[in-house]
């Protein structure tokens, strides 16, 4: 099922886009799977997602870890460490 993917922070800067609609294959279940799948696209994706542990995520507006599933989500955000205040 397609989901809306949003990019923020260094992820947005590195990819040069603020988001896209994706339809990942069925074996892509977790945030870690998603980051790996995106990295396999190569070029800027490979660079931005080269170190998954530096990637932060949110699933339907809730913070999520690499091991968390995004099954059934309407939107997922991938971003660098936040810098509020």
């Amino acid at each position, binding site marked *: 099922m397609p989901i809306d993917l949003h990019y923020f*922070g260094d992820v947005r800067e590195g990819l040069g886009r603020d988001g896209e609609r994706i339809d990942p294959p069925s074996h892509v279940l977790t945030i870690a799977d998603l980051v790996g799948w995106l990295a396999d696209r190569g070029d800027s994706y490979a660079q931005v997602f080269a170190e998954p542990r530096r990637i932060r995520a949110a699933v339907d507006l809730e913070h999520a870890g690499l091991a968390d599933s995004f099954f059934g989500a309407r939107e997922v955000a991938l971003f660098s460490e936040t810098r509020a205040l």
Partner: protein
Amino acid sequence: MIDIRIQLADFDPGGLTARLEALHRPAVATFTAIAAVPEAREFRIDHYPAMAKKELAAIGEEACARWPLAAVIVVHRHGLLKPGARIAFVGVAAEDADAAQEACAHVTGQIRARAPFWRRVIPGSARAEGLRGGPADARPPAAPVPELG
């Protein structure tokens, strides 16, 4: 009362503090974050609008559940900012001084840890490293101000 604002415009810390004082509770504590980065000409604060509003509201609700608070006000700016600009305001009105000071520090810390905002130096204006949040980047929480009279 929890008042959350995410806005482009500057804000008036004095006016926001006066709103808290007008509640006539024993203590008010406030925190104002300033972009103290003299080598930068300007930078941009980006945010994830839907999540930022939700996260700031959740942080305010958590503080109200933990301390006896009459009000929490959080203002966080986004968009282009120059060095010296006000970035954010946190203020609480509470039933005692300890609660006010602890709640204000807690809300500030949680915003720093969880709120989805990002700073980006405008190309050619400065070093990105200088814009990380830290002690030199914001004023510490002000001491609670007891109600007069």
